[in-house]
């Protein structure tokens, strides 16, 4: 549609600003599926325990888990995950508060992913409950991690993130006896705006609740692998 005003013309575009990002994200997702990997995007506040969760997961998944670490600065998280036995690639965003699909695409190109070995690609997003939610990275699962030290009222303060996650992880459950965090409230508020969210209460430190989460991830891996095998 075009409208002319003097020498200027107005065109109707109706195009998402994120169209280019979404295009690259779709390529990332297709690439992971060809390799038989499930992409997981973990988003949370800084200090909620994302890297500790990955260290615990590394004990279960070992070398089958590959990790992309997103941080504003330092490669400390990649070093921690590498020490736990996983392939890890650090993205230093140098000021940017989120990861985008291009960053993940570049990281994937630089990582020696082996389809015979790797089953999970975990992306640890920059610690932030706002900006990362706008960017599709090409993941299959979006996880929102909420630690009990942050307070049970956070879900509705950040609805853009919590309404679009597949999985809510309420972490640091070993600290629950010392806090007034109401897990039922956090889950209820998340389900109020996100009918299909799966929720797990767990502790990376003690291992409580981890098995149910692993079963969930294993099912996701089986689904992607079955899809890849059917396509071959």
């Amino acid at each position, binding site marked *: 549609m075009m409208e002319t*005003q003097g020498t200027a*013309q107005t*065109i109707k575009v109706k195009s998402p600003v994120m169209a280019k990002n979404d295009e690259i994200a779709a390529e990332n997702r297709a690439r992971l599926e060809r390799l038989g990997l499930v992409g997981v995007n973990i988003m949370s506040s800084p200090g909620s325990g994302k890297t500790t969760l990955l260290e615990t997961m590394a004990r279960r998944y070992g070398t089958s888990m590959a990790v992309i670490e997103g941080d504003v600065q330092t490669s400390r998280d990649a070093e921690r995950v590498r020490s736990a036995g996983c392939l890890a690639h650090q993205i230093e965003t140098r000021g940017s508060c989120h990861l985008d699909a291009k960053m993940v695409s570049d990281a994937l190109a630089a990582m020696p992913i082996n389809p015979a070995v790797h089953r999970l690609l975990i992306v640890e997003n920059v610690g932030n409950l706002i900006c990362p*939610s706008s960017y599709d990275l090409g993941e299959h699962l979006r996880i929102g991690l909420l630690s009990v030290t942050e307070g049970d009222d956070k879900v509705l303060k950040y609805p853009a993130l919590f309404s679009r996650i597949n999985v809510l992880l309420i972490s640091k459950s070993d600290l629950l006896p010392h806090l007034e965090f109401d897990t039922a409230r956090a889950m209820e508020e998340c389900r109020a*705006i996100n009918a299909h969210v799966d929720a797990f209460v767990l502790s990376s430190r003690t291992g409580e609740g981890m098995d149910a989460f692993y079963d969930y991830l294993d099912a996701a891996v089986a689904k992607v692998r079955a899809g890849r095998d059917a396509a071959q």
Partner: protein
Amino acid sequence: MHEFSIATEIIAAVERTVGAGARVQSVGLILGSLSGVNADSLTFCFTELAESCGMGRTELVIDARPARVRCRECGCDYETGDFMAGCPGCGVAAVEIVSGYECDIDTITYEEPEA
């Protein structure tokens, strides 16, 4: 604060659509309340970037949209900024979000670059 990144994406999308070098008078943007984008910060970033990219003094005209939801209990459609306030029809607070995540370029008003 990812508004600078969003502004960069808008500029790139406008250039892809109308060609680099065109003088752009205004860009109409639909912005949902769940987009996670702050309208004032975005306008500031966009205006500065557009001028430095040679588009001229381009106005970003934001059409702010509230979140629209559908009650999962009774099917009532309504706009809301408070998800726990409950459905105006049945009072239940359980919704499917119908819209509100938009961050879409709606229109571009521009002059063709002189040959």
